């Protein structure tokens, strides 16, 4: 429900008091345009600046240069309009599932534009039901499985109806079967709510399966190498879309984009063989 424009964005990390040379450039003049209601996935080698970018979008850190506009407005800090789902769930362990889901709703209420207590409880139950978790309202996070925790985290991120959902490898810690379930759940929610989703992943298949667009980033300093438009039919209407030829072509294209960079960089032939053996694995 929101348009995101990233203009000439750079982020340098520098230890206080350290010299300029020791600064790490995590993102280097990056431009990106994310449409209203788009499901945007982002892949790239480890350390290329994906999490750094997401932090900036969330308002948790500030750019060194350039700007990020959400619906034309620059980001001035964290906001309930942009929710984040973290890889390690980040649930508050001293709150029950339902209480976790209500944290954002309570903040909203404190700013005088939210639901009353009873309505908040109903909303929390609604969203827990939406992510397929009925009957765990009063359970604490340590009583839930990894998949259930991440479902609670998704419910918590959505309950106050943000315009943008930012997800940093949210399913990376889950087993394959749970991951596929949650991917479908996320697609359902996205279709229903039309929230703009920025989704970071290491999984090429995951990126193709979920994204309308897949942005491929190059290694440090982070830049966008190419944005691939994914033109597949409705994911769930086809049986096992991941095994179709079209899906495979997208997958391979993104795979080559991710690996061509390494080929240029890596001179040693030993490493080349390592990469090509990685292809068959």
């Amino acid at each position: 429900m929101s348009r995101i424009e990233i203009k000439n964005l750079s982020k340098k990390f520098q230890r206080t008091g350290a010299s300029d040379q020791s600064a790490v450039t995590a993102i280097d003049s990056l431009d990106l345009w994310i449409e209203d209601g788009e499901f945007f996935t982002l892949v790239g080698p480890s350390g290329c600046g994906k999490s750094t970018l997401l932090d900036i979008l969330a308002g948790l850190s500030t750019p060194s240069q350039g700007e990020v506009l959400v619906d034309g407005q620059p980001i001035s800090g964290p906001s309930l309009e942009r929710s984040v789902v973290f890889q390690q769930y980040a649930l508050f362990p001293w709150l029950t599932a339902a209480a976790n889901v209500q944290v954002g709703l309570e903040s909203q209420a404190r700013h005088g534009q939210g639901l009353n207590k009873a309505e908040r409880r109903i909303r929390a139950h609604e969203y827990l039901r939406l992510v397929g978790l009925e009957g765990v309202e009063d359970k604490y996070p340590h009583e839930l499985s990894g998949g259930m925790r991440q479902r609670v985290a998704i419910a918590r991120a959505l309950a106050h109806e943000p315009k943008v959902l930012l997800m940093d490898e949210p399913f990376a810690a889950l087993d394959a079967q749970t991951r596929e379930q949650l991917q479908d759940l996320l697609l359902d929610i996205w279709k229903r709510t039309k929230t703009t989703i920025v989704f970071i992943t290491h999984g090429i298949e995951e990126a193709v399966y979920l994204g309308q667009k897949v942005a491929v980033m190059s290694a440090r300093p982070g830049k966008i190498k190419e944005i691939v438009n994914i033109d597949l039919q409705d994911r769930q209407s086809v049986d096992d879309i991941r095994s179709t030829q079209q899906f495979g072509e997208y997958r391979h294209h993104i795979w080559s984009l991710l690996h061509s960079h390494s080929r240029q960089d890596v001179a040693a032939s030993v490493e080349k063989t390592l990469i090509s053996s990685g292809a068959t694995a």
Partner: protein
Amino acid sequence: MSTLALPDQQIRVETSSAQRTAPTGRAGATIRKTLYRSGAIIGFLLVWELIPQFLLEPASKVFLPPLHEVLQQLWKMIVSGDLLTHISASLGRSAIGFLLALVIGVPVGLVVAWFSRIGDFLNPLLEVFRNTAALALLPVFTLTLGIGELSKVTIVLYAAFFPVLLNTILGARSVDPLLIRAGKTLGLNNFEIFSKVVLPASVPIIFTGIRMAGTSAVLVLIAAEMIGAKAGLGYLITNSQASFLIPKMYAAILTVAILGFVVNAALVALERHFSRWARA
């Protein structure tokens, strides 16, 4: 556990057919476990009773009366209300000092942890204070605050303050930064991050400090009362000794032991209750 218990239970079934009253299954296991756990204490009490009775000469028996004499004395003091007076004197002082330590220690600890520069500045000094035995300062407190209640409460406050303070700082500093980030994205402002994330996240570690503080509050107070007081369990011990009322002295010592045990058990239960969400 349950599979291990299985063969054991079968054996029990055979024996219990002979003697119906034998406890079986879980209840039996619990009883046996409790018996085993209290075995050392029961053994110690038996030794206390039997050695003075049968092995000591009458002359040394005076200095170590058997358990039943001490218990008789204890009972007398309970009935006369004497004991209660001393217990409440001691408990009152430690409770006031202990609660003051909490009320000051937790907020100060949170502030010190939040403003890390204050923390870096104060930390060496705090370490010095913490490692100064509270009793070493008793003369100072007595000189400046007199020998009355004030110096007693102050020394308890001193002894209880540092475990609370240092554990609060430790707890607040070891909060997972991810939870703070999550809180920010859920619309919490700085104060709310503090009260709704940092404080609850540090509760288990703060409670460890509170438990340590409670134990040392009692210990230090008893010692302080032994040096100068007109009531309290510490006074009762030294006073009985000076008046050569040996069973009374032992009764007071026994009371101190039980009191320390009960205070610790209560604080452990409280700690469990407030940390039940923490992962094992």
